[in-house]
Structures are given as structure tokens and as C-alpha cells.
């Protein structure tokens, strides 16, 4: 039971917030507002579902075409701005949540990537990951907004990597993954 709750903790938390919001809307704004909000979410789901499905198909297919990893040898401390660009591209190409991306930092730094490159990687994964853009951002917020957001975010991995190479703190990867 506890394990089940832990595995679905996100879903449970979202459900709880939703439930509280529904009750608050009913109490504070009345039944009309509840009906209005329900209508809005039904429209939202119906509206974005086809795009979301297409986004997932595109992300799933791209993953078969673009290999990641194996590029770490071009991400050393001497790699300059080219290393940061490659690391940014790998970050964009890396799908999945934090459970996949943070261990990937260990893989990259184990293979020789420096702090600037792993920071570029993790910032680009979080900000510009193609998987998230295709599955969430384009269907929900529209291609125009998604493009504006992507263009505004594009230099960020590079800038973060550049700054981190100048932060006077040494970082070495932990010996192994914590259990």
C-alpha cells in the first residue's frame, strides 16, 4: 500500500490539489464557476490530445534516430565553446525525467566531460529538452509561443556552462550512485 502510494505520489499530490481547488471554487465562486471550469478542462483535453499524441510519436521516433552518449570525448575542459555547444545539443536530445538525466551527468563526467559541459547539458535538458517541447509545450501553449520560448532559451545552456567554468569551486563526481 505504502509502496503503491510512493510510486504514484505525483498523481496523488496532483489529485489532492485538484480536489482542494474544486471544493474552494464551489464554496467561494458557486456552482456556475464549477461548471465553467469543468467545461474548460474538457475542451483543453480534447483540444490538445491529438497534438500530444503526435508529439509523443515524433519524440519516440527521433529517439531511434539520434544517438546520445559517446560524444563525451568532445566535452573535456579543453573543449572550449565547441564542447559547450555539443553538450547543449546532447541535453536537448536527452529525453526522460530527472531519474534519467542526473545519472547521465555521472556518465558524461566519467567519460571525460568537464564541469562547464555537464552544466550546459543539465540546463539544456531541463530547459529545451525536445521530448518535453513536443509532448507538452507545443500542444498546450501553441507552436508560436513554443518557438518564442525555445529561441529565448537557446543560449542559456551555453551561458551557464561558460559561467560555471569561472566559478572557483571544484566538483568531482561522487564515487557511485546512491542506493
Amino acid at each position, binding site marked *: 500500500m505504502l509502496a503503491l502510494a510512493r510510486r504514484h505520489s505525483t498523481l496523488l499530490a496532483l489529485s489532492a490539489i485538484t480536489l482542494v481547488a474544486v471544493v474552494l471554487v464551489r464554496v467561494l465562486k458557486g456552482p456556475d464557476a464549477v461548471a465553467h471550469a469543468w467545461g474548460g478542462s474538457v475542451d483543453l483535453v480534447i483540444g490538445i490530445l491529438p497534438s500530444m499524441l503526435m508529439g509523443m510519436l515524433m519524440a519516440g521516433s527521433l529517439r531511434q534516430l539520434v544517438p546520445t552518449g559517446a560524444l563525451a570525448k568532445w566535452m573535456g575542459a579543453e573543449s572550449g565553446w565547441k564542447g559547450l555547444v555539443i553538450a547543449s545539443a546532447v541535453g536537448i536530445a536527452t529525453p526522460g525525467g530527472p531519474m534519467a538525466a542526473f545519472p547521465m551527468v*555521472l556518465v558524461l563526467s566519467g567519460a571525460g566531460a568537464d564541469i562547464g559541459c555537464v552544466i550546459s547539458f543539465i540546463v539544456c535538458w531541463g530547459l529545451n529538452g525536445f521530448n518535453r517541447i513536443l509532448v507538452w509545450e507545443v500542444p498546450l501553449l501553441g507552436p508560436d509561443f513554443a518557438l518564442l520560448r525555445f529561441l529565448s532559451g537557446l543560449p542559456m545552456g551555453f551561458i*551557464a556552462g561558460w559561467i560555471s567554468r569561472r566559478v572557483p569551486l571544484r566538483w568531482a563526481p*561522487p564515487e557511485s550512485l546512491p542506493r
Partner: protein
Amino acid sequence: MTGRLILAALALLCFGLALRKGRPAGLRALRETRDNLVRIMPMMLVAMPMATFLAELVPADVASGWLGPESGLTGLVVASFAGGLIPGGPYASFPLVLTFLKAGAGPAQMVALITGWAVLAFHRVVMWEIPVLGARFAVVRTISSLALPLLAGLIAEALMPLFPHLLAGMR
């Protein structure tokens, strides 16, 4: 609508390319699509009502005032840090952003908010970054990313003239 058709065309093109690599790659692509769908659908079905019901509760002047297109630098700073405080994955943040946009928030402010959510991500630092990579990494990464949401918002502000229908189209 055209955006949707383009996305569909690109998706089918990529799937075609995966199929050309061989049947196993095509099947893997389909299987990943299905797994993604099964994983995300329950989240989505809960997150969409969450967004629309929260929208009823958000006072209109928060979105159009504090985070409105005219809110300038203050709005960008508020959005950047508010973004960093939003916990959870895209299923939580993007419906909220949609809600804010519909309530009159500025696109550049929302770019700052998404960037704050993605690069500051205070909850992710505690849950993932420190346990897996250590506190020192989290410090270096946070120092390096602190200014990025504001910067992204400023770039978006500068790019806005290239997206004239964005302000009008969101209502």
C-alpha cells in the same frame, strides 16, 4: 490549426525515417509512444482540471497586472522566482502557464516563468541534484543559472516584435 498539421506531418515523417532504419526501430518508436501515453494520460486527466479550477481562483489582476505584458522588469523578476518555486514536472507547470496566459499574463513573463521552473527548480535540487550529484554541484549549477530566467525573459521581450499575433492570439 496549421501548427497542429505541421506537427502531425513532422511526426509522421520522423516515424517514416525510423521505419526506414528497420522494422525493429519502428516498433520501438511505437512502443515508446504507447509507454509515454500510458504514463502521462493519468497525470494529464488530473492536471487539466487542476489548471482550470486554479484559474477560477487566481485573482485576475495577478496575471494581467503582476505578470502582465506591461509589468516590465519587475514582472520578469517575479515570474522567474515564482517559476523556480513551481514543483513537479511539465504536467504541473504547463497547464498553469496556459492558465496565466489566458488570464492576460505577458508572453515574455511566461518565458521567464518557464525558464525559472526549468533551470532553478528548487524542488528538483532537493529531490535529485543533491542526492545524486552532491551539494557542491548544486551550488555551482545554481550560481551559473541564477540570472538565466531574467535573461530569457529579456530576450523574449526583444523577440516579441517577431511574434505579433502572440499577444492577441492568447485571449
